[in-house]
């Protein structure tokens, strides 16, 4: 293979993948036009708000090394308060949403201040405790409808009916998703975001350099709260209801599943995972009774084979093809054993927190 040929093929490959990505984005934008209202509402809206909830977890675990099961708690605080204020107190939905998100942020700050002292598995468990506290609180207190929840939540007039006419709601959720994605990506590139990555990789060294490790972890944790809160409000609007059941432990684990399937290393993985989960949830359930088993199997395979999730698999595959097209190295250097997939990651993401968590 001559060098010019290799270069032409590499360029074709680049154009091809870019083109494919463009087509995918175009389809995402045109979902309400191309698909039925059922698909837009059931799959489109759900994947978008689930994706926003999942990205708050992806951000925390990828940037801060904090795998949190308390995302559903913040999600629930915002959603239930917003639903309560707009349905029973007759508030304007926007104002109710704002108050709900602020409340979720306050709760997130409090949880973060308590949990930031713990690390690794202890952090996972303490956030599990927060999730359970919030769940039992909302399930027990009649003000928030206990197990019944709050029904008949109306999204703002501007966004239309989420079930009959989901197009406007869909575009709104898409815009919010893009805004959240860009904002989080911006944060990871600020000095704060870099310090947070430093705290994730080596807390002792960061402390020696004069950084306040606990403060960074607390703020990082709090920063993910409004994102989870936004997802909670959007979920209440999309489903027109919210209850304690929406934030149970099963949902917390589901959120983790979606985030892991998409890939914890990249922010966009959250939406990919949420979309795949929602798609299976909507169509596979009618096809098999043992949906959870299959979900578990997929989850297991992803965790075992590719810690980078679906997005990780795609970028590994892309890099592999590119390397072969370039013709420089015929064989990618792999280590023996299955750990090779994990170590041979071409994505320029800093070392993943997986080892030390």
């Amino acid at each position, binding site marked *: 293979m001559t060098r010019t040929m290799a270069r032409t093929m590499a360029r074709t490959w680049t154009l091809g993948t870019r083109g494919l990505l463009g087509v995918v984005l175009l389809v995402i934008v045109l979902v309400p036009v191309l698909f039925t209202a059922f698909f837009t509402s059931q799959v489109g809206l759900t994947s978008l708000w689930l994706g926003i909830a999942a990205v708050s977890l992806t951000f925390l*675990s990828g940037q801060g090394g904090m*795998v949190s099961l308390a995302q559903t708690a913040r999600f629930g605080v915002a959603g239930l308060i917003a639903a309560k204020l707009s349905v029973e107190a007759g508030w304007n939905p926007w104002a109710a949403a704002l108050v709900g998100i602020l409340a979720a942020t306050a709760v997130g700050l409090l949880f973060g201040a*308590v*949990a930031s*002292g*713990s*690390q*690794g*598995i*202890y952090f*996972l*468990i*303490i956030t*599990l*405790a*927060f999730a*359970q*506290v919030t769940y*039992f*609180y909302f399930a*027990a*207190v009649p003000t928030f409808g206990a197990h019944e929840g709050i029904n008949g939540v109306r999204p703002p007039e501007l966004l239309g009916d989420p079930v009959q006419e989901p197009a406007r709601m869909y575009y709104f959720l898409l815009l919010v998703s893009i805004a959240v994605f860009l904002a989080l990506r911006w944060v990871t590139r600020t000095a704060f975001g870099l310090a947070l990555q430093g705290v994730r990789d080596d807390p002792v060294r960061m402390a020696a350099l004069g950084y306040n490790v606990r403060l960074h972890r607390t703020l990082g944790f709090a920063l993910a709260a409004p994102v989870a809160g936004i997802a909670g409000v959007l979920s209440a609007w999309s489903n027109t209801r919210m209850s304690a059941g929406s934030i149970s*432990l*099963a949902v917390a*684990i589901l959120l*983790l*599943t979606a985030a*892991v399937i998409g890939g914890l290393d990249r922010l966009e993985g959250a939406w990919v995972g949420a979309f795949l989960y929602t798609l299976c949830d909507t169509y596979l359930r009618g096809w098999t*009774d*043992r*949906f*959870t*088993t299959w*979900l*578990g*199997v997929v*989850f*297991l395979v992803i*965790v*075992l084979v590719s*810690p980078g999730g679906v997005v990780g698999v795609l970028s590994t595959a892309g890099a592999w093809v590119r390397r072969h097209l370039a013709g420089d190295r015929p064989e990618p250097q792999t280590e023996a*054993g*299955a*750990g090779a997939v994990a170590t041979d990651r071409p994505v320029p993401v800093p070392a993943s*927190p*997986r*080892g*030390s*968590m």
Partner: protein
Amino acid sequence: MASQTAAVRRSAPRPRLPVAAAVAVVLTALALLGVLWQAFEAGLGSDGNVPTFILITLNGLTLAGLYFISASGLTLIFGLLRVTNLAHGALFLLGGYVALTLVKDAGLSWWVAALLAMVASGLVGLVMHQLFLRWNQGQDLRQALITIAVSLILADQMLAYFGATPTAILPPEFLAQPLPLGLYDLAYHTFRIAMLVAAVLVGLLFWLVYKRTRVGMVVRAGVDDTQMTSALGVNVQLVFAGAFFVGSALAGLGGVFAGTALSLAPGQDQAFLVSALVVVIVGGMGSLGGAALGALLLGLVDQYSSAYLPAAYSNLSALLTFVLLAVILAVRPTGLFGKVR
């Protein structure tokens, strides 16, 4: 010069007042006083609250025994392998269902069924460890995620085979009769007392093996430094496999007890996983004594709070155990007896 003194001042260890710990102790004491006042306020007569108090305390203690049995397996696995086995709840439920099937359908005696259920849970745990966890040693989060996936699959398969109706295992005959306590004409479930005795036995056995045998010595060495133990010629992988088998079998035993004293239903796996985690975390992961203390705390807090909280707040009792956990972790991030690593 001024900046140097500032730096020196900053780096000097500040005297720390244990404010949070003191507040926690005071609150616990107040809560305990509240419970005791309610119990003994109406005097010691048989028309007072004392008989109820005794029953509630026994409920708490026997529940603590159940928690300890399943949590001891979890803490063994964590202490030795550093694996947070989030499939522990599923193995717990599996043990219960296996025993149920053996007693109900195969007509085996309770004791044989319990033994076989332990072996079944232990084997499933062992297979999971050998197939999925062994080559991921040291990757905490990945292992936790793997066990979550396994627990999803196991729980769903159990729902498919055993259905969603809550069912209980019949206790062995001589434990089925109520046991007279000799106080206030009270009688209590003999089986639940037996559960408490079993928990104490499990604890004693663990302690003896741990402190007095060669196996225990190897396990303790493995907990402290796995690589060094391996370098000294111990087959660490064999010890790990054994620990995983025993830990999972204890989960199964817990499931058999829970299925006999309470009942078995889908969702119990998560409920008991969460309580076992709370017990282990409160005590400090890897510490057996911590697990015993954690189990006692959880069992008693659970029962006292649902009985003695003012009526308006009694539906918040489920919340209290998690508040307890959060408070303890906030004060001591590695639990009461946990070691910092």
